[in-house]
């Protein structure tokens, strides 16, 4: 079993699916010759040729829109948006079309497609290269939102996303791209979408996170007895796992990188309040980015929830 970082694991998932299914194509900016700016699609052009690994003009709406057209025709495109900050130019295609085509045509047409994009902070890049815009997409019915947290689950989740009959937004935390290596089987396995992962079990508090926040959450909870939940899929999220844990611990802390207001934590907190408030010992707390634009490198660490802020929240809720 090879050990891989997340970039390699995603590459492996693409390679395996492309080899198995000739409907799977990769399209995006610089995905071919260059292998993608993070090298996620490295080697695919050589292996599958320019018909299946398509370097596209610099046109995000056009790329996603073309992927919609390909999917309608029966292919399974995997479109890369070079950075999440540039997905905004394709909102219309995602919201108005990819997410609605099945519904609009009452099942006659659908959009089995994946949009992959590097997501979140940690690469010391210019503005709009470190966005965490997941919540927008979770509000929209018709599209799934997936965030892997390591090489092993990245591969299993991406394979599921490619095989999913509906559009999936696959957010790849750049901070994790090369952070750890894990054993990643090069034979087929999948992880179900919509299912969370219990990273660590404990009794006193439930901490819910995804993507790059998990690593610091795991560190932060060391002195406590905590359930740590990695959602992995944000939409639709695994309500059962979240509620079961919160009913057990009676305390919930949600950690995310995106700004607080209307962040995905709000949905989690509301769900916990609706379904499990009588089990709670204290308020549901959110440790998140501030309601500002994610700053550049010098200030990004002040913006992000750190171990100290997470511990503070846990300490606060442990008083109840």
């Amino acid at each position, binding site marked *: 079993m090879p050990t891989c970082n997340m970039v390699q694991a995603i590459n492996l998932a693409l390679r395996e699916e492309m080899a198995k299914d000739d409907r799977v*194509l990769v399209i995006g900016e610089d995905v071919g010759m260059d292998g993608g700016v993070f090298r996620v699609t490295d080697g695919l052009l050589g292996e599958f040729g320019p*018909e*299946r690994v*398509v370097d*596209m*003009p610099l*046109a995000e*709406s*056009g790329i*996603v*829109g*073309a*992927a*919609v*057209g*390909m*999917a*309608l*025709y*029966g*292919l399974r*495109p995997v479109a890369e948006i070079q950075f999440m900050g540039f997905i905004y*130019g394709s909102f*219309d*295609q995602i919201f*108005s*079309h990819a997410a609605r*085509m*099945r*519904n*609009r*045509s*009452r*099942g*006659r*047409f*659908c959009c089995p497609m994946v949009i992959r994009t590097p997501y979140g902070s940690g690469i010391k890049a210019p503005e709009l290269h470190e966005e965490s815009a997941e919540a927008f997409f979770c509000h929209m*019915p*018709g599209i*799934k939102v997936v965030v892997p947290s390591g090489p092993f689950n990245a591969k299993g989740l991406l394979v599921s996303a490619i095989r999913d*009959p*509906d559009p999936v937004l696959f957010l790849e935390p750049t901070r994790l791209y090369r952070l750890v290596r894990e054993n990643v089987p090069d034979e087929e396995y999948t992880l179900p979408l*919509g299912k969370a992962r219990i990273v660590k079990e404990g009794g006193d508090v439930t901490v819910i996170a995804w993507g790059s926040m998990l690593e610091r959450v795991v560190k932060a909870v060391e002195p406590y007895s905590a359930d740590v939940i990695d959602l992995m899929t944000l939409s*639709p999220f695994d*309500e*059962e796992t979240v509620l079961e844990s919160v009913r057990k611990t009676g305390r919930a802390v949600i950690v995310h990188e995106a700004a607080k207001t209307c962040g995905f934590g709000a949905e989690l907190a509301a769900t916990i309040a609706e379904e499990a408030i009588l089990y709670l010992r204290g308020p549901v707390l959110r440790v998140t980015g501030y309601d500002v634009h994610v700053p550049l490198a010098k200030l990004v660490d002040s913006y992000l929830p750190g171990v100290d802020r997470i511990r503070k929240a846990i300490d606060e809720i442990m008083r109840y």
Partner: protein
Amino acid sequence: MPERTIATFTIKRLEILDDKGNADERLMPSLEEVDIRRMYELLVLSRTFDERALNLQREGRIGTYPSIFGQEAAQVGSAYALDKSDWVFPSFRETGMYIAMGYPLPLLFQYWSGDERGLISPQGLNILPVSVSVGTHIPHAVGAAMAVRYRRDRAAVIAYFGDGASSKGDFHEGFTIAGAFRLPVVFLCQNNQWAISMPRERQTAADTLAQKALAYGFEGVQVDGNDVFAVYRATREALEKARNGGGPTFIECYTYRLSHHTTSDDASRYRSREEVEQWKRKDPIDRLELLMEKRGLLSGKDRREVKERSLEIIDAAVREAESVPPPGADEMFLNLVEKPSRRQSKQMTGMKNADV
């Protein structure tokens, strides 16, 4: 080094049938008499549908409806050139195309009455649902054309849109990709001179819309959009070119929206009666009738029969559409995704008991 001219361009306009019903025989496409008759029937049927839809809307039996009055030739002429299995990406003002492609008329009435089930294109027809967000479906046609190329299929792809859509970013992005890959796609713009209240001149400073294609590296032509033969010929040639690897074509059908933008619009707020009257003289159906009369293909009796037959077809379609039971409330939850989420399923069951 002197300054040199490194590019010049010309844009062609194709006209075959004039207002008096005379056709330029050199340009006339090869069409059998039965084809000409069929085109005529489709034009009349489209207009009859339109008239009925406007009435039904006034009676509150359907919702907001965008009339195709005046644009029938652009729609029927282009659709007549398509194969049934071609891929069609319409906007929202394409009733004539649907009719010419053989889309079931009751479904159209059903859709415009507010029932999405009317957009379920029958198997065998690859007509995408009405696309309301102006111009945003252009990249879909481009992606489908990429898929056609990848699959080495013979199908061609066509996108329909208006003059207003030519200002959208997706027009630019779609055209860019189509040109860069020389894709088998036809872009058919009905320049009906208006985008709600915005006249064509306010949409762009370009003299023609057709010339925009040149910037993307492919051919753009203007055709008289009220001339069913010119539209048919241009579309057929563009489709053949697409199928033979010749790349995309942009066809600007120069036409006019004789009615309001939709049933909720009042066009007298922004355009003159004289302008409308002038365009009425270029009515696409009148012209074809004149030609057919000259050629002995249409008598007064034939004319009445075609109209009566159209009325019968439309009556039957309305009856059928109105006999369809309204959708159950569940319908809104079906087909969101293949497998609804736990929450969606819960909401769907909860809805029945009016749960919170």
